[in-house]
């Protein structure tokens, strides 16, 4: 300890203190502050970039999820559409069938009616013709019966004879 004190050089202490404090101030201004500022800035920019990447990743995932959802929805919609179409088709076919049936029935009914009409008309026509023909025959028969005097006389006789009954 005695030796330590006797060894102690005040001049060296003075210079050391002076130089060290100067060095500290100079380094603080020209080195440590810019270095630490830059490093901090760099670190925060790295952190920011990482956060951004993380956010982008999350966004990407959510977009993908959305896509999946949309795809699923589209598929379901297609399914529904197809199903509807199928039922619609069956309905249409059934409708068409009934419609056709109805039409056919109608046509048949109409045909039957017209057949009846035709038949009636034909019968009427026949009747008329038969009457006509009958008249003509009767005319001819009468004509042929009354073309001689004896016959006329005989007829008259007869008629008188009948009338006098």
């Amino acid at each position, binding site marked *: 300890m005695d030796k330590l004190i006797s060894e102690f050089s005040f*001049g060296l202490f003075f210079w050391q203190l002076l130089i060290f404090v100067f060095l500290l101030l100079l*380094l603080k201004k020209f080195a440590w502050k810019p*270095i630490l500022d830059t490093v901090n800035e760099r670190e925060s920019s790295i952190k920011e970039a990482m956060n951004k990447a993380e956010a982008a990743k999350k966004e990407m995932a959510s977009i993908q999820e959305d896509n999946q959802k949309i795809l699923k929805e589209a598929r379901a919609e297609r399914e529904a559409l197809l199903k509807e179409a199928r039922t619609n088709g069956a309905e249409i076919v059934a409708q068409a069938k009934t419609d056709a049936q109805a039409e056919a029935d109608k046509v048949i009914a109409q045909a039957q009616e017209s057949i009846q009409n035709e038949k009636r008309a034909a019968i009427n026509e026949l009747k008329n013709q038969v009457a006509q023909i009958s008249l003509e025959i009767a005319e001819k028969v009468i004509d042929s019966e009354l073309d001689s005097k004896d016959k006329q006389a005989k007829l008259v006789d007869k008629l008188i004879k009948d009338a006098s009954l």
Partner: protein
Amino acid sequence: MPKGFYLFLITILLFSVNSSYAKESENENAPTDLKSEIKAYILHHLEDTHDFNLLSYTDDTSGEKVYVGMPLPVILWDEGLKIFSSSKLKHGKNVVEAGGNYYKSYHGKIYKTDAQGTIEYDDSHHPTNVKPLDFSITKNVVSILFTAIIMLLLFKGLADSYNKNGMIAKGVGRFFEPIVLYVRDEIAIPNIGEKHYKRFMSYLLTLFFFIWFLNLLGLTPLGINVTGNIAITFALALITFIITNISGKKTYWKHIFWMPGVPVLMKIVLAPIELLGVIIKPFSLMIRLYANISAGHIVLMSLISLMFVFRNWLGSSLSFALAFSISIIEILVALLQAYIFTVLSALYFGFAVEEHDDHDDH
């Protein structure tokens, strides 16, 4: 092979200095046996000097000691400023006249003497002459300045490289950026807390790199021992002490003078202990760094010196291997001591700025 080269340099340097020392001791009345000579040499190395010598040798023709290195300015405050070159001191051989006063260097310290350079001693052979205030630019001051300039260039370069390269470090700074971040994330934030750490970052970073670089500089073959000097570690510990107590908050002072959660009697007993702790904490910082670095230098130099003590192939090569491994460990210690000083400073700052809410949960 930089490590091998570095050790080679150490060996060469120590060999040259050591051998010259041996010759010098023959001229003087200093202890002549090798072991005490080594001891003197090591102790001499641990001290600060007034000139920056790389090596010295004795000129064979003139028999004079020749020093290779550079002289540094000696600045004394003794009834006015006295400035002269350390080369005038001639390593204690010359008396220097400056401003009407005479000065002489004795064992690395400058004393005021008469014109003949008489130094009077007390009973235990300590000089009794007046020591003027010595503000000389010594070897350690030069080393500190060198480190400060290196740090300024290095970290200014790192800061500038961000601007040029869009927030990415380039050049040498790239190596130091992770260490800056380490100091922030592993030293400052865990010990001080997310809320307050920013205020102390400049000091902690400067402290860490300053100690680390000077420790490493001490391992170069330049014979520098800055962080193993008590004045240096005292200055560093003093700054930590001042910052701690300036930033001390209510909780900090309450823990010192009126410890919460203990009986009143204990509070009274604890107050002086805690108050002592305020001093002991930075004091331990000072001693720890000083002792570790000094011890490292002493061990390393002793092992290198052992090569010359043994003077045979087995002992000397063993000492060499030991010195080699110790110097590698010392590189680690250089970093470790810087780390410990910084961590403990951060811890003390953490105590100082701790707030009441933080305390309740432990």
